[in-house]
């Protein structure tokens, strides 16, 4: 169990990481999600002991390891760049951490072959990294991190330099591989879709702060505040300003959105309502859907679905609708908003009532 207790990193009088509490359990996969420069790498460096927190402490299994150098901790790291020993074969690359720790030959061989099998590297064991594709190189780096039998494995955007399709495949495999190891995995990414595919837990980061931590899917569905909601949305969220009064959400344009059940009990007053693009549609989803008149801007087609960019009362929205809809720009259309999934935020940006799952 890794604990950050009010750990912070200050550089030149500015917080790179604000005082943060975070507890990561053994055998868990934890995603750090946030845009570039939100503090993902800094946070990992604190966890690894590469940087010493300027405030607070880091505990591992209840023992204070603040300031303990990285060499003394049992940690493995995988970086965005494919880092392998260029002159060693894949086999020797994977074996290297065990050679350092002085494992006997038979154990090394068994572990290397097991890891290679897991990461589908068996046919390439005799090659050197220069003769491998990017995906194979990164899998070699992953295998090395796994055989180290580290208690903490940190991965800093490990798939960012790989092809889209390869990324998709590894994302699917990684959770299975992680599940077989008892280590704490920490995985940094800028992509919400990557976090969702990996599952596990997610900590969202924004400007050096952990805005929320919990099971990935819960944070996606029930973000605690606007910042988290925006960080964890790809495609971006749509927003609408409303006033709740009685049984409806009154919009400036005069439309009244039917009040969904999960927002029924909240007090009257102004709200910011957010929803995902796929909760807008051309057809009525339920009887509680709101019928809205919008103007189209452009349409993007992905083959099976269409992203229709809309303007509604001066606000830009994106609708993600199944099927192919190539609508001319500046056309008036009618769309339906599925109110079951609305997220509501108060003027302070805190979530008022979370959307139903």
């Amino acid at each position, binding site marked *: 169990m890794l604990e950050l207790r009010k750990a912070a990193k200050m550089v030149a009088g500015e917080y790179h990481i604000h005082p943060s509490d975070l507890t990561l359990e053994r055998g868990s996969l934890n995603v750090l999600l946030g845009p570039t420069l939100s503090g993902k790498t800094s946070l990992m460096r604190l966890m690894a*002991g590469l940087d010493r927190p300027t405030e607070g402490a880091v505990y591992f299994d209840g023992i204070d390891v603040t*300031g303990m150098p990285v*060499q003394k901790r049992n940690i493995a790291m995988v970086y965005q760049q494919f880092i392998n020993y260029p002159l060693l074969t894949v086999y020797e690359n994977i074996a290297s951490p065990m050679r350092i720790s002085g494992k006997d030959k038979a154990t090394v061989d068994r572990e290397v072959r097991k890891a290679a099998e897991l990461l589908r590297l068996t046919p390439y064991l005799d090659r050197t990294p220069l003769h491998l594709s990017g995906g194979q190189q990164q899998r070699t780096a992953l295998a090395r991190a796994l055989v180290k039998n580290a208690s903490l494995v940190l991965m800093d955007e490990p798939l960012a330099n790989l092809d889209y399709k390869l990324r998709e495949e590894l994302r699917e495999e990684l959770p299975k591989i992680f599940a077989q190891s008892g280590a704490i995995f920490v995985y940094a990414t800028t992509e919400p879709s990557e976090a969702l595919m990996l599952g596990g837990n997610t900590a969202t980061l924004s400007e050096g702060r952990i805005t929320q931590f919990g099971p990935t899917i819960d944070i996606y569905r029930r973000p605690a505040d606007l910042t988290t909601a925006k960080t964890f949305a790809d495609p971006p969220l749509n927003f609408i300003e409303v006033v709740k009064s009685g049984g409806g959400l009154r919009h400036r344009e005069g439309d009244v959105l039917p009040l969904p059940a999960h927002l029924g009990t909240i007090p009257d007053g102004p709200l910011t309502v957010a929803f995902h693009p796929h909760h807008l549609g051309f057809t009525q989803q339920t009887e509680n859907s709101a019928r809205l008149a919008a103007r189209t801007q452009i349409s993007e087609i992905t083959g099976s679905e269409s992203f229709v960019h809309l303007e509604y009362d001066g606000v830009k929205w994106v609708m993600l609708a199944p099927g192919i809809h190539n609508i001319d720009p500046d056309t008036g259309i009618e769309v339906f908003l599925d109110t079951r999934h609305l997220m509501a935020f108060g003027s302070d940006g805190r979530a008022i009532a979370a959307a139903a799952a």
Partner: protein
Amino acid sequence: MEKTYNNKAWFFVLPVLLLVLFSAAIPLMTVVNYSVQDTFGNNEFFWAGTGWFTEILNSDRFWAALQRNLLFSVIILALEIPLGIFIALNMPKKGLGVPVCLVLMSLPLLIPWNVVGTIWQVFGRVDIGLLGRTLAILGIDYNYVRDPLDAWVTVIVMDVWHWTSLVVLLCYAGLVSIPDAYYQAAKIDGASRWSVFRFIQLPKMKRVLLIAVLLRFMDSFMIYTEPFVVTGGGPGNSTTFLSIDLVKMAVGQFDLGPAAAMSIVYFLIILLMSWIFYTVMTSSDKDA
């Protein structure tokens, strides 16, 4: 990249620290010690206060040598920097030419300084030197032993020959780090050769140029061996730079006090000039 916070690092830099201590800090303190005392040997010292400094700063000999130094450095920079950039720009970027050019460029840098001096001393001699003799046959009146201008030209040409390679290598390193996409984009934008240099190559070379200018300034300002070997500071005092004057004073005349004071003034001037260069050249980085 990986920083760890333990004290092991100090252990590794300790040898360097010790070396610097013995080779720089301790001698420097000795010099400071000498500069404020008078001695006639036999370990007898008399307090001289700032006397030596006043004497040095009031001596025409010092100011004349300093002027020669500055002039020399300005000429050296004005020649070697543009020439170095020019050669670097025209060096091949790929293929067999690269190692050949790099080796050729490094050759002068590998020759010991006194050997460089000796080479040119012989090379320029009117009686037996290839250069001196050729010029004499061509009817050009050239004699670095007699004519101060000829002596200056010889020393400058020698320094350019010796050190331009350093500027070339530094600039070349800067140039090859520019991604191809920049050149492609410039072609597409219809940029002229000059624009490519002005807006892509020069900005990317700025950092290495700063290093080149600093190194060449400090080195040229401290020049000693080569002119000493070639001209011995002459004819007259025409190529007597501060360093040569300093040695004459300390070793030739054994005026340790004034020599020590001069050393310190000399040291402070170099420090000051380097600081000015550095500040001026890095200041434009901060405006973005």
